[in-house]
């Protein structure tokens, strides 16, 4: 036996060992994921281009394929030709792998320098992204349209001795019976006076309903890129509003020289030919508001995307109908996807929005030329909107 023998200890002795308490690997993996997340958020406008606007609500997520991040080190350039040592029955000249063939020959001892090779899917909650954006863009929280209330909501409140059979509260009734019999133990098991019915009252609640009109010029001059930018803006505007309103409905209007209401799916696919008459869209919107969304009960938003070309003859009609919408809406936004950056917001349509804005009302115009500008527009919209409310 050694003078100074080795010692043995096992898990059982000390009870719970410190290493059971946490996993450092998992901790550092989470940190890695945070870094990936940050990197992904910077590229978000591209990421969500495939996502749908209306879908989901709070559980809604986008899936982004990402690679593991590599912690870089100095390493030699990949050689055209390299040698290695192997083991097995071979003879000189044997071809182990033919050109172009992949060999899964990675086994113990081969130091992998290809940690970037694994792809995994990062699932980002839209809500998390929105929260992050609000923080990042320093956006204010919206205020609900003041003074509007709706009062058709029944809420349970208290109990009554009379009521409809369906609202009988058995538990409560049983309690009453027990109370009565504790005073008078010889009484009958149940009498009519024990019964309790749930009572409903009408409550006035602030309106948290909203409708957002997304209108888009789908004439032939709108390119794919323009649609994609508009869609990206619509997406974030929708998500931002969703933060505020528990109940929000999107309505999609596309127009050329006529306007139609579409479901979301077709909306971004639809392609029209011919010219642009914006008033048709505005008219359709105010008709829909009249029929389905009472301005007293709904917060109304309208966003209109176009490349700015509108028929000159339509100027007065467009201005008139737009003024009507602006009067009803919490906010009216114009998103221009100009042919060139220089011409941004120097167009017929921009002029119409400008003149209506001159008459008061919450109206903003933004040019979308690239992914960056989507953030500028989103920030502008929410800042301006919050500002109007605060003022």
């Amino acid at each position, binding site marked *: 036996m050694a003078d100074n023998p*080795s010692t043995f200890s096992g898990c059982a002795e000390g009870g719970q060992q410190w290493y059971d308490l946490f996993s450092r690997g998992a901790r550092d993996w989470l940190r890695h994921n945070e870094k990936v997340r940050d990197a992904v958020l910077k590229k978000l406008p591209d990421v969500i281009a495939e996502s749908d606007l209306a879908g989901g609500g709070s559980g809604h997520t986008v899936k982004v394929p990402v690679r*593991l991040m590599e912690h870089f080190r100095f390493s030699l350039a990949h050689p055209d030709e390299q040698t290695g040592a192997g*083991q097995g029955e071979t003879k000189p000249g044997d071809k182990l792998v033919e050109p172009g063939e992949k060999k899964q020959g990675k*086994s113990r001892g081969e130091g992998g320098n290809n940690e970037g090779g694994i792809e995994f899917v990062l699932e980002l909650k839209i809500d998390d992204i929105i929260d992050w954006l609000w923080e990042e863009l320093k956006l204010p929280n919206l205020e609900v349209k003041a003074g509007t209330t709706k009062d058709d909501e029944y809420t349970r409140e208290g109990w009554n001795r009379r009521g409809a059979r369906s609202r009988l509260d058995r538990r409560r009734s049983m309690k009453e019976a027990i109370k009565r019999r504790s005073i008078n133990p010889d009484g009958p098991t149940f009498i009519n006076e024990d019964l309790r019915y749930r009572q409903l009252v009408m409550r006035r609640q602030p309106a948290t309903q909203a409708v957002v009109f997304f209108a888009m010029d789908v004439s032939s001059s709108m390119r794919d890129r323009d649609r994609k930018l508009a869609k990206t803006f619509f997406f974030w505007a929708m998500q931002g509003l969703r933060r505020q309103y528990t109940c929000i409905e999107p309505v999609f209007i596309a127009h050329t020289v006529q306007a139609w209401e579409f479901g979301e799916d077709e909306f971004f696919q639809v392609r029209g030919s011919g010219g642009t008459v914006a008033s048709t869209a505005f008219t359709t919107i105010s008709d829909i508001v009249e029929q389905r969304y009472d301005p007293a009960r709904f917060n109304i938003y309208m966003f209109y995307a176009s490349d700015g070309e509108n028929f000159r003859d339509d100027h007065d009609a467009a201005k008139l109908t737009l003024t009507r919408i602006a009067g009803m809406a919490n906010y009216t936004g114009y998103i221009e996807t100009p042919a060139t950056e220089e011409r941004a917001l120097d167009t017929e349509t921009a002029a119409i929005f400008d003149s209506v804005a001159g008459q008061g009302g919450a109206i903003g115009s933004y040019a979308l030329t690239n992914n960056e500008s989507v953030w500028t527009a989103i920030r502008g919209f929410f800042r301006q909107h919050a500002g109007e409310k605060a003022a």
Partner: protein
Amino acid sequence: MKGSLEVYGQQMEALAIDQGLDYFPVHFEQVPASFMMEVSIYGLPVRMPHWSFGVRYVHQLIQHQMGHSRLFEVVYPGDPGRAFLAENNSVAENTLVIAHVLGHADFSKNNELFRRSQEEVGYKIVEQAAAHAKRISSAIEQYGAEKVEQILDAALALEAHIDIYKGLRRERYPEYRPDSAGPARTGFHKRFHELPGEEQPVAQEVQRVRADIPPHFERDLLWFIAQYAPDLEDWERDIFLAVREESFYFYPVFACQTINEGWASYWHARLLREADFIPQSEYLDAIKTHSDVVRPHASGDQVSLSLNPYHLGFSMWEKIVETEGLDAAFRIRKEEDDFGFIRNYLTEELAEELNLFQYKKEKSGAISVLDMNLDDLKESILERKYNFGAPRVSATDVGVDGTLHLTHEHGSDGRGLDLGRCEKVLEYTHKVWRRPVTLSTVDARSTPRTVSYPSQ
């Protein structure tokens, strides 16, 4: 560790000492397999946090789930040595592991490279690394995770860039050049000037000249940056030097992989053969574990494109003991690292017996077996081990504006650096050096290239 394993362990130890193994006592601990895996990823039981370990962790998890890797043992040299055994191993397996660990403990106490490293770094690396981790955790609390991560990004990226020959503890360079007033005055000069008619020499004003920083190619980038980075805070330097200290610990582990694993495998096999105290059934289990560990390639494969260091080292040690005797083996385990071990003791005969071969992989992906040439084969085995497995990059100059110039010795390495990765490492380095950083290397066509960060 109750019951038979502890008994077997003590008997195994008595046997080992009887056979001539010489080691510091080892503290054995049975831990969950998940903990074993983490330890192997971090290299040390308690180590600083960094996201890159998280990436390795997930890689290991995936490999583990695919059944590729099974951890045998994790052992740390020192006085006492420390070893972790997987608690889900059978008693027979862990008895074998104990014997294996004793082989490692003997190696790390006696091998020159290990001994020198431990004298510098200390005999309590596990505790030291834990202390580093603790200091880094408090730095995170005090200065924030981002700042600490910045330092660790750079320090861990340069982890392999140390100079083991210059040692762990170094003085800063002398600030001035050695006196350059000319050759020392000899008696002859004195007598010459005393000759009539000779003027007295003008007393030369000694002008001290600032020495170049660095005065020579500096391979120890961790040390150089820690010492000479213009605006490094003390706590930041502390982290840099903590990483460097751990690198000095890791070097012998890296440079002695084949010889050390081979030695431990040789001894677990030998001790097991003589361990008559183990019942027959458990003995067979242990033998099976042994053959799993030292098998040449993954089961099912006939040909492997990499060598299993356990297998190669084990076979070499068996041959050495057979042909040269046990005393010679003890001497060799004292003197050699993988370079000397493979160059001096891998014989043509053994290479043939083990069916070792050298292959060539072309750009097209085609792989073909080359003619047998023992020296070339050895170089192929050792190729990735030179210089701590990293390209030779030195600090060569600091410009007047504080720019750090690095030079890659592409001649010695045979080709240039991967320029994309290079720029990323310079970016990490820049965040610590806080002045521009440049690096000279060559590209794929051997044209000189300079990479800079921030790029010019």
